[in-house]
């Protein structure tokens, strides 16, 4: 989880205040010291931290908190509100030019992930907005950069415009836009070479591209792991080019991502997307309010629900529920359920989104082995239809066959069958409990 560290730290700070009847000025000061530390650990720029602390302290020491009936909670609220405000308002959309094609320029330092993000953005535009983008390879400097974009283009089946690495990027951009017009592309995504914000010559090149094609959006691509220097980079690119938005990459790492706060604070430009992996569909809109919740360790429940909705078939869920109630739940259904859970993404990531999960020490280091789930699937798939419907008929000889078929030891087959039996028992109890109006009870999955 991106902001894990910050969440933990703020949470332990808040714990001290929570439950207190009265907050003294000294309390607030002590807490602000912790907040400052946490933010610095998270790579938020020092100056940004200072401003933030000042603002929060003012509000916290002011009447708002001191006179409140629940001062501790009030402080948490203030910190969260200011954090959300710092990260910007609601998520933003991508511009649509009244005169197509809409031109988007991707800029940033070397290695931030511009080329990959260009591919992801193109994929996003087509899948979510039904657009037809043209990718433009304007990085003529880095060896094989053009080839990289071409390979990505092939993966998502989209055309890539290139004039090789001997033509000036400004001309490439101009010709690409002309080409897009002829071929009726509604978006043009220009992948520029990575460059240092202090490299005058290369920054001029970007300005020239900007003047030549008048882009509707200029996205600064920034590595989420960036430290204190993020402000210098963002400021410089913004002052020289006038960026319109930011895309934060590599947020699937374990960085605390304080750079997000810094960049937003110095440029006042919205963070539009975040990159969450190396696959081309791993680009997601940035949700400041959710990120703030995450920072404060309140869990990212909204994302979890969205993921569940996207991957669980409503009809199937209802059917499953009925089967559970009528006790006709079979190994087939179990298999189905497993695959639906897996569709939601890596399990340890899902776990981390749960509220409070960041605080549970054991959960922090847990790595749910996806392989184990695949083993369970293999075992079930090695059974005959009859066996899946009526597992009780599985005798020693059948077990040997299943073990052989799935390539798993016979003990694992035994364990699975036993656990499935227990699960059914538990379902029975749960249904009974529900009938009595109680709601407690937990499902135990064989792989947990």
């Amino acid at each position, binding site marked *: 989880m991106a902001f894990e560290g910050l969440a933990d730290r703020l949470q332990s700070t808040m714990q001290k205040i929570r439950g207190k009847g009265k907050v003294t000025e000294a309390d607030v000061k002590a807490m602000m010291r912790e907040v400052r*530390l946490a933010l*610095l*650990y*998270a*790579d938020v*720029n*020092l100056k940004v931290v200072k401003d933030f602390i000042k603002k929060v302290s003012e509000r916290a020491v002011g009447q708002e908190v001191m006179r409140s009936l629940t001062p501790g909670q009030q402080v948490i609220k203030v910190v969260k509100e200011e954090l959300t405000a710092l990260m910007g308002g609601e998520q933003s959309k991508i511009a649509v030019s009244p005169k197509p094609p809409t031109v988007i320029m991707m800029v940033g*330092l*070397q*290695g*931030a*992930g511009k080329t990959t993000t260009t591919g992801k953005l193109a994929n996003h535009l087509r899948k979510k907005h039904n657009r037809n983008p043209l990718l433009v390879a304007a990085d003529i*400097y*880095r*060896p*094989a*950069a*053009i*080839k*990289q*974009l*071409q*390979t*990505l283009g092939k*993966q998502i089946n989209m055309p890539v415009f290139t004039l090789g690495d001997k033509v000036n990027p400004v001309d490439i951009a101009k010709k690409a836009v002309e080409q897009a017009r002829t071929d009726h592309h509604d978006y043009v995504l220009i992948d520029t070479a990575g460059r*240092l*914000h*202090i490299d005058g010559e290369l920054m001029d090149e970007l300005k020239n591209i900007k003047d030549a094609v008048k882009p509707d959006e200029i996205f600064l691509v920034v*590595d989420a*792991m*960036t*430290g*204190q*220097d*993020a402000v*210098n*980079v963002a400021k410089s690119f913004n002052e020289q080019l006038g960026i319109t938005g930011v895309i934060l990459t*590599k947020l*699937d*790492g*374990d*960085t*605390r991502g*304080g*750079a997000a706060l810094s960049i937003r604070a110095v440029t006042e430009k919205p963070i539009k997307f975040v990159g969450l992996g*190396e696959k081309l569909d791993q680009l997601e809109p940035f949700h400041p309010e959710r990120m703030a919740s995450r920072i404060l360790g309140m869990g990212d429940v909204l994302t979890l629900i969205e993921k569940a909705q996207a991957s669980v078939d409503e009809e199937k869920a209802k059917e499953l529920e009925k089967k559970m109630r009528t006790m006709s739940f079979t190994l087939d259904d179990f298999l189905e359920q497993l695959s639906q859970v897996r569709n939601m993404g890596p399990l340890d990531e899902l776990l981390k989104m749960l509220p409070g999960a960041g605080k549970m020490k054991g959960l922090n280091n847990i*790595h749910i082995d996806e392989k184990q789930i695949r083993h369970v699937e293999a075992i079930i798939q090695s059974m005959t239809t009859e066996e899946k419907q009526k597992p009780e008929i599985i005798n020693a000889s059948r077990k040997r066959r299943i073990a052989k078929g799935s390539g798993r030891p016979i003990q694992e087959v035994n364990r699975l069958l036993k656990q499935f039996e227990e699960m059914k028992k538990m379902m029975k109890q749960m249904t009974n409990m529900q009938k009595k109006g109680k709601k407690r009870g937990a499902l135990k999955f064989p792989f947990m």
Partner: protein
Amino acid sequence: MGFLDKFKEKFTSQTEAVTGKFKDGLLKTRQNLTEKVNDLVARYRKVDEEFFEELEEIFIQADIGFDTVIELVDELKMEAKRKKIQQSELLKEMIVEKLVEIYYGEDENISTLNLPDTGLAVILFVGVNGVGKTTTIGKMAYKLKSEGKRVLLAAGDTFRAGAIEQLEVWGDRTGVEVIKHQEGSDPAAVIYDAIQAAKSRKVDVLLCDTAGRLQNKVNLMKELEKVKRVIQREIPEAPHEVLLVLDATTGQNAMVQAKQFKEATGVTGIVLTKLDGTAKGGIVIAIKKELNIPVKFVGLGEKIDDLQPFDAEAYVYGLFAE
């Protein structure tokens, strides 16, 4: 204007000269350093809380780990008290010395590569995405080749689009052969083939590229462990160096990177890239202190000869530049 502003002002002009030398690969002597510090004598005023606070902020903004900063500043405070230092000039010397000390300790040669005198040397390059592994390998190949070594490259990044081609371009530029498989193939198999080829061609140094990976991706880290195992199986004392390539713009996460990659592959040194920007990569000081991994080389640009041995003194002066 605080004393440190003046200090910085003075140093900014000097640092350019220092960095210039750094770039030219000139090694400065300690006397040289002392001389430069002496130049500042006149500027100094008194040592007080404000001074330490400003110092702390300079360190924080250079991405030196927070714990290290607090520790450093506390030590300096104590020493200032003990030695009854009131003039900041004397303390300045201490600051630079302390930072440099972290690097050198007893051994001044930590920034050289540990390669065997005879037989094949294997260097494995690891790191997260986009730090400049492939570029660094290209530059390293050039460097070793100009030292008269026979070099071979292994295209172990079989994942990222265009990675193999990128290494091939560097191979062409440096006149060094590249052993490769197709995109998507098993990196351990590529490395295995490269070792066999290196042995039969009597190569001196084999440089192994790997795909960038975030350190919290368990499966990918396991893949890296496997690559290392394959190398060890073929040559028990190899890899002779495992170099973690680190982007100087990275913040505190670099410590986690160093820890995890060390655990998985036994990192022996760091290559700090993109130091030609405004980022300082100060976290390497904390990494040296906590994990004892030294920086061996720094990347100062995109040109083929922009890889330089790390010079702690020049680097420490650089920390104070704006």
